[in-house]
């Protein structure tokens, strides 16, 4: 009995760690840059596919891919924001219109990225095997790759939280999240900070992708599912709250694990139901303003 509970809880934490990372990235992009990035999952997919290529073709350790994919995704996100979304911001008459327009533009981005990836990697489902030996945690057995993933998710999440809470740049980000115009008046280089946040969000997505590829199979169409999960977690944790996304991710992971235990087919439906309930009962989420 205890083993079952442990199994469910730890599996929930494993899922939750990934969900937390994905959601934190989207939370940055939506909470600060005010872009509901529907193509978020595509950056995750890019992280997965790149890691797969690096591992199977060049034999590169997936954890080394973390240091490759993260900064590359950051650069990509930064450039995209500076060119596309900055332009949209100056064109949009109001923040509400910008949110709508940027969401649609990000959808266009989704199409572009997914198609380019499909041309590069082809439609087959791929996977690789790394650290796939079993480890026993108090009687329940898990793959080492999953436990390491959880560890990394926690470390990265914590590091990120400290970055936002303790550093000067983090303060600038928090200021920009509260009120971009006033932050600009206070000396924050708002253009750079917004693009930075978008880039960081993309980087977190790619890092999550690297970790996902350790435990799951990957293919170019996998992004959408993760984008939806990220949106659900961000809504659950509170739109614009990064700690909320972190906690919300683990919460959703636990719920997912419990529902999977009861009836695996229902887990996705359960996610959406939670999503709808949250939006109706408490739209600001658990920790939102």
């Amino acid at each position, binding site marked *: 009995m205890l083993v079952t509970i442990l199994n469910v809880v730890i599996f929930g934490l494993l899922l939750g760690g990934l969900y937390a990372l994905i959601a934190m990235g989207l939370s940055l992009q939506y909470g600060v840059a005010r872009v509901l990035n529907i193509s978020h999952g595509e950056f995750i997919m890019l992280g997965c596919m790149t890691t797969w290529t690096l591992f199977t073709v060049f034999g590169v350790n997936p954890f080394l891919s973390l240091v490759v994919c993260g900064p590359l995704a950051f650069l990509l996100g930064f450039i995209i924001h500076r060119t596309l979304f900055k332009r*949209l911001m100056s064109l949009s008459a109001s923040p509400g219109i910008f*949110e*709508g327009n940027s*969401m649609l533009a990000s959808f266009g981005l989704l199409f*572009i990225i997914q198609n380019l990836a499909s041309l590069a990697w082809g439609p087959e489902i791929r996977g690789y095997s790394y650290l796939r030996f079993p480890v026993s945690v108090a009687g329940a057995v898990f793959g080492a790759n999953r436990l390491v993933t959880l560890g990394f998710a926690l470390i990265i999440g914590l590091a990120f939280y400290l970055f936002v809470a303790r550093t000067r740049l983090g303060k600038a980000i928090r200021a920009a999240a509260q009120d971009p115009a006033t932050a600009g008046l206070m000396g924050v280089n708002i253009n750079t900070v917004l693009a930075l946040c978008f880039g960081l969000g993309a980087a977190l997505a790619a890092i999550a992708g690297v970790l996902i590829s350790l435990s799951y199979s990957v293919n170019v169409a996998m992004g959408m599912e993760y984008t*939806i999960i990220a*949106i659900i977690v961000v809504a659950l944790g509170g739109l614009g709250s990064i700690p909320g996304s972190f906690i919300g991710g683990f919460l959703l992971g636990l719920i997912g694990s419990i529902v999977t235990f009861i009836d695996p*087919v229902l887990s996705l439906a359960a996610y*959406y139901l939670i999503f709808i309930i949250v939006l109706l009962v408490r739209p600001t989420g658990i920790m939102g303003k």
Partner: protein
Amino acid sequence: MLLLILLLLAGLPRFASAYAVVLLTSILMYIILTQSWVLFSGPTGYTSLAPAAFFGVGIYTAALVGLKLPLPVFIVAGGLASFCLALVVGALTLRLRGIYFAIFTFGLVQLIKNLLVWYEFSLTGTRGRFVVLVANNTIYYAMLAVLVLLLITAYLIRRSRYGLALQSIGENEEAAAHTGVNVTIVKVLTFAVSASFMGAAGAIMATKWTYVDPYMAFNPLRSFMPVLMAIFGGMGQFYGPVLGATVFAYLEETFLTKFPYYYMLLVGIILVITIVYLPGGLVGLVQKGRRAISRRGQNANT
């Protein structure tokens, strides 16, 4: 002018190839989806990503009752089912802010799909369903009839006090409420009416596909396409969505047949370019062109 086009469309199956009829049925479907989306989301500004949900409900209504009831009846049934769903959804969620509403309707499509998958899998043991077979020409005429109905409805709404109420809600909801507009009823009713046309279109389309399963019926892409086509066409004028849907549906057909590997890429690029450079859509482009021509005419006269 419009009457001429309609007459032409009505006589089409007699002198065009079967391919043209099928292609046009598809284009008509897109026009219906786009125009009914614009019916609600145009004036009010609430971006609804639920067309796929209502379309899918129409499809499944056709799948469930199509074998027992005649065609016009189950088309109406599809429309009615979507109408009821939209009433419920609208009443629950139209008090959410714009972006929340969009996200919610997006989630709705997935929720219904997953619930249906679970229901079919666990309780009825089916994976997909067969739909009654209907002749291509009949499908074409049915689609055309629904479109004409929709255009008449859209035109009447736009020109009536009801349409003014919608627009006032879109511009400032609180002010509209203060001037006496029953905001909730207007929003929910319009949402439901737009949904019913999508459901009817879905019911018709199901007969063309003849086999449906939840994944096919509830494709989130079909929620974004009407939005894209409406933006591409331009929402300023009445004919904007029709123009956008026609051009885009035709482009889609061309892309799918000529560049199947680049289809998504091209659609994505068009979407991004439209949002950044063509905020008024094709209609905006036409208006700019007219203005440029009239300006040149004025310059030539003086």
